[in-house]
């Protein structure tokens, strides 16, 4: 294992110190319990947005803390959910009197820890709502599993809900909009290579030189199936077909298309994938009104990509376009 770390045990603390050194003007960083909060929190009268999850997916979530997006993010150890005391402290730090929305990706650990945190925070008298993202169509049998995983739509949802919260919409409105974004979003990912968690030092699965894994999660989980690698056009088809069939997206729909790199993919390959995605969308009569291309929800050094489509409405477009000023996403400022 070759990584730019000091020791696996100190990884989270070292990374947070780096974040504080780089962005101390816009963030406050708490180390015990660990969370990152925007410097001007709590913003009075604004719904607070708190997300969190295992580390290793940067820039999600810490890189999305700032005006127009999240108020706080709680990082866990690599690929491990953060703990209720972190979420409780972060929730209190962002409570400006209008309530707090927890944005939770559907993983067993994340859901249980955020549940415990919501119980604790409500006992403190803070109004808390939670929205759980579960957009991964690779999980076919959601009845006999822990359910579909929360992946790419989480980034889009945090931006849109962040815009609505900045517009001083109520907790109920922001939560309802967030749930609508999740309900209208679908994603699927693929890997060219596995990733190596610093604690284990070993690849999360094995792929031969000419194989790809289709339907992976963001924690190095193996996917639906593996096959010999084909051209980008074929890989795009493998991901887009289940996404389009699942919602289903139909001719005339306005969509946001998000091509995301898993951490180790050059941007040039992501643009090649975007070109294929745009062709397939057009062939299905979908109009891509907004797009996002880059490494936003990653899986350490994994090479590969995921595709997310969101069926848009006017309110979503308005809050997607609203100003955002975070290390990970910035426009309109």
């Amino acid at each position, binding site marked *: 294992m070759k990584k730019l770390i000091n020791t696996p045990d100190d990884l989270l603390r070292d990374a947070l110190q780096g974040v504080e050194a780089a962005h101390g003007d816009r963030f406050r960083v708490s180390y015990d*319990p660990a969370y990152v909060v925007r410097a001007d929190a709590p913003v009075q009268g604004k719904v607070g947005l708190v997300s969190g999850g*295992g580390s290793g997916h940067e820039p999600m979530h810490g890189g999305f803390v700032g005006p127009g997006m999240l108020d706080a993010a709680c990082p*866990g*150890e*690599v*690929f*491990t*959910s*953060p*703990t*209720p*005391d972190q979420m409780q402290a972060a929730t209190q730090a962002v409570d400006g009197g209008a309530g707090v929305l927890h944005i939770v990706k559907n*993983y*067993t*650990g994340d859901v*249980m*820890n955020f*549940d*415990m945190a919501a119980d604790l925070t409500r006992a403190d008298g803070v109004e808390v709502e939670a929205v759980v993202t579960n957009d991964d169509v690779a*999980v076919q*049998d959601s009845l*006999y*599993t*822990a359910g579909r*995983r929360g992946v790419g739509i989480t980034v889009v949802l945090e931006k849109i809900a962040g815009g609505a919260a900045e517009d001083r919409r109520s907790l109920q409105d922001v939560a309802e909009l967030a749930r609508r974004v999740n309900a209208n979003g679908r994603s699927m990912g693929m890997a060219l290579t596995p990733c190596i*968690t610093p*604690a*284990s030092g*070993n690849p*999360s699965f094995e792929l031969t030189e000419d194989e790809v894994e289709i339907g992976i*999660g963001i*924690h*190095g*989980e*193996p996917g639906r199936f593996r096959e010999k690698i084909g051209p980008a056009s074929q890989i795009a088809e493998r991901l887009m077909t289940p996404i389009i069939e699942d919602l289903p997206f139909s001719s005339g729909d306005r969509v946001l298309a998000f091509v995301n790199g898993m951490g180790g993919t050059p941007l040039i390959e992501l643009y090649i994938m975007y070109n294929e995605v745009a062709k397939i969308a057009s062939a299905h009569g979908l109009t891509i009104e907004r797009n996002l291309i880059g490494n936003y929800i990653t899986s350490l050094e994994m090479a590969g990509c995921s595709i997310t489509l969101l069926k848009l409405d006017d309110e979503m477009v308005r809050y997607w376009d609203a100003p955002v000023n975070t290390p990970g996403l910035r426009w309109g400022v």
Partner: protein
Amino acid sequence: MTRFAASMAEHREELVQLDTAIGDGDHGTNMDRGMRKALEKLGAAEQADAGAVLKTVAMALISSVGGAAGPLYGTLLLQMGTALEGKDDVDLETYTAAWRKGVEGVQARGKAEPRDKTMVDALLPALQALERAPDLDSGLQDAASAAERGMLDTIPLIARKGRASYLGERSKDHQDPGATSTYYLCQTAAETLAS
């Protein structure tokens, strides 16, 4: 608890390997980190009774393990600790009642049923063994053996809860890491009483 911490440190790599096969490879690391934190907390303050010890360990696990194992082991020990609070002498009846509370807490938090390939598959057989036992000594021994059988019985199962459930058929022929750490907990309890 000192012995369980030692057991988690000793079996850290084994749990990591089991978890890498069907999960995300962090179970051993997380439990080892959590139990080291728990020992720190136990050393820092005088503990009134077994219930207080378990509650202290539970809170340390909840705030340091993360993942699913933190809330689940935290809930198990918190429920057991509450049931054992103020009890200086723990006999078979009180221990079994506490274990039952703990298992119910885990099932309420994690919503797992038997044969979902989770720690419940070791916890429930251990409870049944305690319920049949004549005294605490043999009860803890039988519970450890039952948890071990439960752990081994997870090997052919298809996971229906937790991260392994995403693998479907591919989760077969692997032993569940959560059931494995639960067996080590039962084994530690039996060894501690025997010594």
